[in-house]
């Protein structure tokens, strides 16, 4: 009786989150099984799997799905490569430099996706800073296209989601006892070997956590691909936006959203499995 009292106190909060948080998802799933009547935007009666059939039948969506996974994976890899040294610097640093780096790292998280993307347009646009400099130096006569290309979108995604990789890494790396590295070096391991055999394996939980965060964020990203892709790089997010806000096929847009939810759920389960495997191996060792 006594142990259930705290649960009772939790009940209102749980009920509220269930309604406010879960009900829209339930509606989303419900709507994904509806269609609009011919020549109408109203949802027709009855449930159907037509939207899912369309998703599978039209190679356009499969291609967008695969492209989005590719973009997200590439973004995850690049944020890891760029983020590791930065996280290490923050973890081992001290004083003002550490605080400054950490604050700089947080800027993209604080200012949202739109502002950096718009800034990026001024840097990378055909009449932007980069192209202007190249032309001034005589390296090119006509503008090089960065916007509307896969490269431009990936660059934007890396910039936007780097903190999601760095923060978990800082967390794990700063808890690594330096003695372990010193021990490895004193036994004759080169710095590269210390990284490969000592730091990276111990940082694995942070890497997995960061990778999941970055991958999920990149997978669902809409603003960055929309702005930097200029409508030419179709990702799942931009396709869903187009269907919901421009074509006004809300049921089909719901289907796209459900697919993204399921994909992210799968990614989470996979990463949890991977994490468990790592832990078991470490215990065995």
């Amino acid at each position, binding site marked *: 009786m006594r142990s259930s009292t705290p649960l009772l106190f939790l009940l209102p909060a749980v009920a509220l989150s269930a309604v406010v948080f879960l009900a829209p998802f339930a509606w989303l799933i419900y709507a994904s099984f509806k269609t609009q009547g011919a020549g109408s*935007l109203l949802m027709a009666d009855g449930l159907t799997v037509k939207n899912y059939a369309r998703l599978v039948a039209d190679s*356009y969506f499969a*291609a967008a799905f695969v492209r989005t996974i590719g973009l997200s994976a590439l973004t995850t890899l690049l944020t890891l490569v760029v983020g590791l040294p930065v996280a290490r610097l923050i973890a081992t640093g001290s004083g003002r430099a550490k605080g400054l780096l950490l604050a700089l790292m947080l800027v993209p998280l604080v200012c949202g996706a739109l502002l950096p993307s718009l800034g990026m347009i001024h840097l990378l646009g055909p*009449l932007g800073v980069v192209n202007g400099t190249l032309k001034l130096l005589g390296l090119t006569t006509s503008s090089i296209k960065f916007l509307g290309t896969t490269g431009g979108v990936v660059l934007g995604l890396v910039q936007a989601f780097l903190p999601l990789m760095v923060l978990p890494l800082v967390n794990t790396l700063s808890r690594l006892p330096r003695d372990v590295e010193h021990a490895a070096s004193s036994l004759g391991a080169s710095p590269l070997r210390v990284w490969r055999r000592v730091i990276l394996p111990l940082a694995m939980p942070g890497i997995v956590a960061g990778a999941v965060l970055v991958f999920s964020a990149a997978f669902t990203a809409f603003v960055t691909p929309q702005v930097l892709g*200029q409508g030419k790089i179709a990702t799942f997010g931009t396709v869903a936006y187009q269907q919901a806000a421009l074509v006004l096929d809300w049921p089909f847009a719901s289907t796209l959203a459900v697919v993204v939810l399921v994909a992210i759920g799968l990614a989470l389960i996979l990463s949890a499995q991977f994490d468990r495997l790592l832990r078991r191996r470490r215990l065995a060792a």
Partner: protein
Amino acid sequence: MRDTLSRRAIAAALAASIALPAMMAPAFAQDFKGKTLVVGVWGGDIERLLRQNVVGPLEAETGAKVELVLGGTGDRLARIYAEKANPTMDIAFLNIYEAPQALKDGVVEAPDPKSPLYTEIWDGMNNGCYAMSLVGLGIAYNKKLVSSPPEWADMWKPEYKGKIAVASYPGSEGDGLLGVAARLSGKDEHDADAAFAKVSELKPIALTYTNLDEAFAMMDAGEVAMAPMISGYVLAALKQHPDIGFSFPKNPGPVLVRDMLCLVKNSPNPELAKKFAELALGVKNQTDYAEQLYFGPTNKNVKLPESVSADVIDTPEEVSSLLQLDWPYVITQRSDWTQRWNKDVLGQ
């Protein structure tokens, strides 16, 4: 006692008989006090003019509050459809390709042919909702690259290959371009194969723009020669770009595009909504729309000075020279055409 009572009653009645008529007027004006009219509309210059010509006077006259919900039509369409059973929005400004469908689906009020709102507007313009402004899809062009105001067919000339920009699709610009392209192939928008085949010949598209500044910057830099654009804003913005011109083509004519003012069905404040519509469609507001935004007035009573009239669609002859698409048909094709545009024109 009785005497005093009756005397009091008489005094009260007297006072009332004097005060009542005096109170009537403010009482009427305050009928709408505490009410909030919700209007979904585009931001920027349109918002500025509406605040000045409609919101201000309406709030002063009625004591009601007017809340402008700014954004694109997709947002407010989603809202009025979602709230069909219990609307909270009173007026939604929509595009011509959305209004007839909204009427068909019963989320907006049919225009009333007997109301002065209706009769003061050019005949045949109130499709689905009340027509707010008339603009035409023409061609914006770089005067250094294109020597004279171009015709539609000029966009397909080899010397401009790779230098044509288009707006993002779906939208009026894209639908208009498809309609024109089909006609250049001797067909019309009902033949989507012909339309898309012709538009695809414009590839590679130099720029898919989502805002005008971007497109104008590329045009000023000579990287874009021509782009199908809707008069109105464009003509207003061109004051800052002396090297960019705007052509109303003749063969076929510019594609007629309209902004529509829709009264939401079963809205909470139908009377206020009607008053708002009267002011918005009224001569003062529509004159300002024309003079400042180059939006052609739909109100027949608007008389424009010569200099403004030249850039604005404001006479029956001009209206009849415009190319009218079969919008109700175009709407039904929207999903398919978006897919085809993504694949055929953008090459995704």
